[in-house]
């Protein structure tokens, strides 16, 4: 029945019915999940999130036509594997921003997407780059709600005092990523 249902996802994609395809990923800190719409990568879920909750949120927030279909995520999975193995510093993926709030939040995330491997910035820096220098708390909320972590590298935003700050994927993951990039 498994191959049968794999064919189902491929047929669904051919007919334009596969609104959200997802696949599991292995990270050095456990299993995560990636999801893409027809427009691009829309969600990266790290191991501290429950897959079931993530899929329910995708179903409610985008479309209930959610199917496991790794074929649409081959490139994203390959690039993430390479990144975790220390063989990739930049991602070359089409992104679908629809799960981030338009306006200030999205401007913060788009500015974050331009931070380079190994570089860090403060919450205040990101607020300023998004056009509201004093809104560093709101910048923190924007980063906390980042639907595409790692690829949109919110882990590169740290507190001005030197503390690494919060992270949606958990503090161990943030420390791991900053160490991987040689930023700690």
């Amino acid at each position, binding site marked *: *029945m498994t191959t*049968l*249902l794999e064919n189902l996802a491929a047929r669904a994609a051919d007919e334009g019915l596969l609104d959200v395809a*997802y696949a599991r990923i292995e990270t050095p800190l456990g299993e995560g999940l990636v999801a893409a719409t027809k427009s691009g990568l829309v969600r990266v879920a790290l191991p501290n999130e429950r897959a079931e*909750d993530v*899929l329910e949120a995708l*179903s409610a927030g985008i479309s*209930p*036509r959610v199917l496991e279909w790794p074929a649409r995520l081959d490139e994203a999975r390959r690039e993430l594997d390479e990144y975790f193995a220390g063989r990739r510093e930049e991602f070359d993926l089409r992104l679908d921003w629809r799960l981030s709030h338009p306006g200030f939040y999205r401007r913060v995330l788009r500015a974050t997407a331009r931070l380079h491997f190994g570089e860090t910035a403060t919450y205040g820096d990101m607020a300023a780059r998004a056009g509201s220098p004093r809104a560093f708390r709101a910048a923190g909320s924007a980063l906390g709600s980042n639907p595409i972590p790692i690829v949109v590298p919110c882990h590169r935003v740290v507190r001005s005092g030197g503390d690494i700050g919060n992270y949606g994927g958990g503090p161990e993951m943030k420390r791991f990523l900053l160490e991987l990039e040689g930023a700690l």
Partner: protein
Amino acid sequence: MTSVPHALPPFQAFLDEHASSVLAFLRGMVGPQDAEDCLQDTFLAALRAYPRAEPGNLRAWVLTIARRKAIDHHRSRARRATPVADPAEVARAATEDRSVGMGQRDSAIWAAVAELPPAQRAAVVLRFAIDLRYREVGEAMGCSEDAARRSVHEGLKKLRMSAAELKEAA
């Protein structure tokens, strides 16, 4: 996130939950060889209509689609003038696969199921192969609980007659 009551589950979860009972139903309706094709057609049609589905009773909803696919399948086979599900095949599948809920000693009866008129066959398969209650059989067949009960009873009556004939013949 807290799950909203009556929200549609992600299609994959819906598929994982219902695929095996829909397959058991289709095996009873079209035979094991064609059941898998019908299964794929059923879930593709379900995916197309899914955003408008009623979250309350998704099992009855998908079984309704499966029943229509089984009927379409019989029509297209009839047009090609090939025999409808081979009773011997159904019997073999029923003995090999416990998921259809029938044991070896019932295989002759199960073969006779394939000979029933479509509505009685669907009702009998829904009731006994996937253990639906009469209310649910009715929901999946788009008829009342009473009509479902009657179809099952009519079907069973015919099956008892076939069983009696078999005994006599043996």
